[in-house]
């Protein structure tokens, strides 16, 4: 089993190396001991190497926590190398904020050697969501990236958060909160109380149009709860980190409310799903990027959710 996993990692490393040379990934220190790699505000595609999600690193006195591992095994390896250049301390936790590929497929790069491998941490509902998606993720990697991903290369977290969990990195504690269904049904936020840095992952999209893969009403409720954090810096899953708190949530909330209002209006008019998506899809969305890729999709998901309202 261990040999098999090593072979997977080795083959992925040797393949990506032979194709494009090893990746170098930049980490910016945004607060003392808090580092962020900014993903591109683009769709998860081979043209950008899948490097689209923001990845976080928090360094304690004893060890390091990784917040999301990147959209491909090669990106995970590049993140691991960047951490090794930054600190001699070992990675003790890899936290997955939700089951989307741009946030979890780098896990495998941290999984060897097994004796010193970190613990993988996630929302209690992530393993089922990841298992349900695994065949499709492997298929998408093959189809879009030309990378064959063995089933064992999708590392499923085993430290699971039902509501809240604190992780001690030595002299600094991370607070992990598991949220009800919002962006997905397995969203996890990470708060570093020492620097008051809040990693919201895909609960917050900045510049990149929010993507609805959970519950629109749930997401709006979670946003209201999130405003209670006493944060100095917020790191979204996509787009620029911000010190404007909680104002950094406003643009996303505005879009989600627009989607809610327009979808309810279409349902009141007894529009079918396709009609409704066509109608909502024509709305102008100034200020957002990737609306073409995600807005109609969001309208589809919103309709399927809201048609159950009384």
């Amino acid at each position: 089993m261990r040999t098999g996993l090593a072979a997977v990692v080795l083959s992925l490393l040797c393949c990506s190396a032979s194709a494009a040379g090893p990746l170098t990934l930049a980490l910016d220190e945004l607060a003392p001991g808090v580092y962020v790699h900014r993903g591109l505000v683009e769709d998860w595609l081979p043209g950008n190497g899948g490097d689209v999600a923001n990845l976080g690193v928090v360094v304690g006195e004893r060890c390091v926590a990784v917040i999301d591992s990147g959209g491909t095994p090669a990106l995970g390896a590049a993140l691991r190398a960047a951490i090794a250049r930054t600190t001699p301390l070992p990675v003790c936790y890899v936290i997955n904020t939700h089951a989307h590929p741009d946030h979890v497929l780098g896990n495998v790069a941290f999984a060897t050697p097994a004796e010193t491998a970190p613990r993988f941490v996630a929302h209690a509902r992530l393993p089922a969501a990841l298992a349900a998606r695994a065949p499709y993720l492997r298929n998408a990697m093959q189809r879009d990236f030309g990378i064959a991903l063995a089933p064992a290369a999708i590392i499923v977290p085993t430290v699971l958060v039902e509501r809240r969990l604190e992780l001690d990195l030595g002299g600094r504690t991370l607070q992990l909160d598991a949220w009800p269904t919002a962006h997905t049904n397995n969203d996890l936020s990470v708060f570093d109380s020492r620097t008051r840095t809040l990693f919201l992952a895909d609960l917050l999209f900045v510049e990149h149009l929010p993507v609805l893969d959970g519950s629109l009403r749930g997401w709006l409720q979670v946003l209201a709860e999130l405003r209670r954090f006493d944060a100095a810096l917020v790191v979204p899953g996509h787009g620029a980190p911000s010190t404007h708190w909680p104002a950094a949530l406003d643009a996303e909330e505005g879009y989600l409310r627009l989607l809610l209002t327009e979808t309810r209006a279409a349902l009141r008019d007894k529009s079918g799903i396709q009609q409704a998506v066509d109608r909502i899809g024509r709305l102008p969305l100034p200020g957002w990027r990737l609306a073409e890729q995600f807005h109609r999709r969001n309208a589809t998901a919103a309709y399927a959710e809201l048609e159950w309202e009384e």
Partner: protein
Amino acid sequence: MNRNNTVKGCLALLLWVLAGTAAAQLKSADNPEASPVWLKVQASLFAGRTIAPARGDIVSIEAPARAEDAAIVPMALRTRLPAGDSRHVDKLYLIIDNNPSPIAAVFDFARGSGQADIETRVRVDEYTHVRAIAELSDGSLVMATRFVKASGGCSAPPGKDPQAALASLGKMRLRVDGDVRRGQPVLAQLMISHPNHSGLAMDQSTRQYTPAHFVRRVAISYAGVPVLTADLDFAISENPNLRFHFVPQGAGELKAEVVDTQDLRFESALALVPAR
């Protein structure tokens, strides 16, 4: 010894990678008649029978050119016979070539359906041809084909919130849209809360597959007379949704009876009094 195994493992994987990337992605221009899955489906469902292509008549499919959300792809199958054609549509087959289970649905229309049109939502993960095949009362077959592109990125066919769907398992909404008039086709919608699990997900800790659990049959009747039966597959999205027609001949109850793969049965009914 150990290192040798590792090298062998790496070579085996590289071969797999090379074999995998050699498989070309389906393009819209590819001949739908030559699709290997379709040839198998055709042999199993329609062996030895001629299938005429629809030429903008008899049967058509409305579907987005690209699956916006792989878990919820709206599909409308519509039928229309030329004026004076005395035949009617007995069955509609919905085939999605590149789904794990290509036969998504088979709809059986009783005479009381009036208009053999269906709208539903399906899961589509791959670039695929989608087919609607109408079987007419004289036994002839007519097929419409559409090409649907896969969605990109983080979209995948499993549902949004299986726990929520399971928590309200079997909850149904049955409603009619517009006026209900005697002898005129009425548009109705059935919504069923159900996770519609494919059974394709493996539990990583037990290495066991989660058993499939999906709605397999829906029977619609009005005033005790069959309107429509649908044999469905897990290709239908979480919380299955059907829009269909029926023709009320008098006061009665529109009734939906649903059976899933665990033999759980759910029922919903709506009493109606049509205007003259």
